[in-house]
């Protein structure tokens, strides 16, 4: 009887040791507990508005890396300038880890709305990865609020008009807009060609 007990106890001990070791291998000490994860998720700073994104892209903020989490098909049809494509399904693929687990750049996830990008953000933040953000409203908001910016009512506040003016400027920057209409001299082509060049540079910066 005693021998059996000793066997059982040693087997249990071995099991416990194995479990802790196996646990350690799986363990990521940066991983956030559920409470901390939720505490982070409610911070407004996790989200970037389309207006802030437009400003950052126009000033060629070199820290920005745009990550499009939609499918490869959707990415091919349209994506933001300089974005890289990591479909949500492939977020944790080994190839992508150096991109999502880093402390140098500011990663901005985006999708058509906010939901898919938020999921990518959530997984990255649970793993304790730094500098992750997601685009509030996604491409739908980008097009509606920036590219197709509509003037406010005449009775709107000064702030609304200022917002509209900056959106209109961004719309011209990103979409081409109506720059050419005011410049009918030979300066127009020069101005027009210098802009896209800058865009190209920022695209390169984002992809690296």
């Amino acid at each position: 009887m005693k021998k059996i007990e000793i066997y059982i106890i040693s087997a249990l001990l071995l099991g416990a040791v194995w479990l802790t070791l196996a646990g350690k291998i799986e363990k990521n000490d940066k991983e956030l507990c559920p409470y901390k994860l939720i505490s982070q998720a409610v911070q407004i700073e996790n989200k970037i508005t389309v207006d802030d994104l437009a400003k950052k892209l126009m000033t060629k903020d070199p820290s920005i890396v745009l990550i499009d989490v939609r499918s490869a098909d959707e990415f091919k049809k349209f994506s933001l300038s300089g974005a890289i494509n990591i479909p949500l399904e492939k977020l944790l693929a080994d190839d992508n880890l150096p991109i999502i687990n880093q402390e140098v750049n500011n990663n901005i996830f985006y999708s058509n709305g906010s939901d898919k990008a938020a999921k990518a953000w959530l997984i990255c933040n649970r793993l304790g990865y730094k500098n992750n953000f997601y685009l509030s409203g996604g491409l739908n908001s980008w097009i509606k609020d920036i590219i197709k910016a509509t003037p406010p009512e005449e009775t709107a506040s000064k702030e609304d008009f200022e917002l509209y003016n900056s959106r209109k400027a961004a719309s011209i920057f990103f979409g081409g807009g109506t720059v050419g209409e005011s410049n009918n001299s030979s300066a127009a082509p020069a101005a027009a060609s210098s802009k896209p060049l800058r865009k190209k540079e920022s695209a390169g910066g984002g992809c690296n």
Partner: protein
Amino acid sequence: MPSDATYELNPKAALAYAITDSNIISPELLASLIYAQDPKANYQFVDLRNPQDYDNEHVDGAINIPLSKIVNINNCNVLLDKNKIYIFYAATSDQAIIAGNVIRQVGIKNFLVSKGDFNYIKNNILDAYKINSANYDSEKPAYDYAKVIAESSGPNVSSASRSSTAPVSAVPKTKKKESAGGGCN
């Protein structure tokens, strides 16, 4: 710290769950649950917004658990009754989805997540159920993005080619390319 022991799903499993969109219910089903008003039904609406917004207006019978309080600080437990089916909605759809994903990661399964945020529910279900109310998905592209971008560069291109002749005709071409290139093709 009682940290990682409290997750039922490891990160890869959590991602696999996030992709499926299970537990997310359509506005149509949501409307039927709101209008059913069966007192015996075990459905419990949970309003994840802050108390002020909740006090202002909420779905009938909803309880208020602000998103920040959904997970207990001491034990990471989620105080939900196993015999009920909770239906989450929030100020924005991504917040409700974050709540659903986190509580599924800790092992809770008896919940549903509304696809629409509170404003959507209010405007399209509570105030008036419209013919398009069921047709909602915030991840659905609201535009043909590439087309919109091409069109918004359009006037520029035509006005430029009107203004001068030879050199300009080359410009619109590169311009068009750029705006497409702006999409990182």
